[in-house]
């Protein structure tokens, strides 16, 4: 007897990933924006001003 195989559609899989991907993407975007504050304060490769020896 041949088993009735109903394959999940690619659209359904995409939709399922969008349901979780959109909020996650929004969260990552917000966090990245926040992280930019670090790079604006300390440009890559730059060293902090030296602290005078105590």
């Amino acid at each position, binding site marked *: 007897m041949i088993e009735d195989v109903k394959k999940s559609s690619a659209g359904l899989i995409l939709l399922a*990933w969008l349901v979780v991907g959109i909020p*996650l993407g929004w969260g990552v975007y917000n966090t990245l924006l926040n992280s930019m504050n670090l790079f*604006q304060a300390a440009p890559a490769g730059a060293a902090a001003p030296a602290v005078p020896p105590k």
Partner: protein
Amino acid sequence: MALLSFLDRERSVAHPGYSRWLVPPAALAIHLCIGQVYAFSVFKIPLTQLLGITKSAPGDWSQSQLAWIFSLAIVMLGLSAATFGKWLEGAGPRKAMFASATCFALGFFISYFGVIWHQLWLIYLGYGVVGGTGLGLGYISPVSTLIKWFPDRPGLATGMAIMGFGGGAMIGSPLAIKLMAYFRNADDVGVAKTFLVMGVLYFALMMFGVFTIRVPREGWKPENWTAPVKDQKLITTHNVDVNTAFGTPQFWLLWVVLCTNVTAGIGILEQASPMIQELFKGAIGPVAAGGFVGLLSLFNMAGRFFWASTSDFIGRKPTYFIFFSLGSVLYYLLPKTGADHLNSVVLFVTISVVLLSMYGGGFATIPAYLRDLFGTHHVSAIHGRLLTAWSVAGVLGPVLVNYMREYQIAHGADKASAYQTVLHLMACLLVIGFVANILVRPVDQKYWMTEAKSQSREGAIK
């Protein structure tokens, strides 16, 4: 209760042709929601101003009173995961995820009344106890299902789900801030309505997970995949009962592995913002430090996916070998990057993000390690019990860091150099984890489930 019969394990068995790629989004839906717990701190200031609105007034709650809400939630996470893990194995992931969603949302709703009636015990009970129970159930509910769907890539599968827990705070924090700003007015800080809306939103997203999750049919395996025939010493084809596993040295060695890795990670997380500001005084201010904390969150999340997936190729034990050997060296070097030594912000940030990626990776790789050692039958239940290591680390990490720092400062050390002792202590902790990982050996066959017991367990999920 016929209405709820759709939650039964039998009703969640996948039909032929059901794509396994629908299962990770179901698991992610749960973890993205419960990961909100790490964003609870955004409510702390508003909750101290419920009466005063613009500032704390007499009768308003203090920060130290509110700190118990988060602690209770994390303790309940560990306790409920340990307690309900075995029930979950029989009841199935759908029922457990539904229970998790109900508890988590109910926690917000009870807390809503706690805010409007200004009764702190209701928030302890709601978000802390009831919501915390939902956290534990939700955390472990999709683990064994994912491992069964992805026998070829268990690390990848559990890494995807547990990555969601890391990402949950990234959603929960801006969402709560935006909602509180929307509901805020001259008489209300907006917390109560935010709790209500978040409870509804999270329940809806978790229900997506409940309806989407499926367990594979008996005997299912991925197309064109055969179980490796090559004998791999640390990957068993047998199963160990949760109660038996609890008595094996392997369980306790992994408990130490998780506890030390988490404690060390918390050492950075707990102090991230003040540490970067004090090590680079004058160069890094509070705003930039906030950016640093955000960057750590991103790498914590990414590390969960990256390291757990990598462990599928290099093995679990070598993965933790990297965490503990590289981690202890990096913790030792971290204070040397400060302004009074190498004076490199870039190096400090680079080392910190690598360490945080390994902290997240430690969480995400442990379910696959458990599966390798104890088999798939009770892996969620065993994972649940192992999470008590997290509860202990959640208390131990901050206590160690704060106590050591205060002790150093009280004995004349300046704020920047006090970090050196703390971070070196974290390096020592990782050495303990390193030894525990090295000692992990395959589980002795005297602990294996009998074939008959394994079969009867399989029969229950046909």
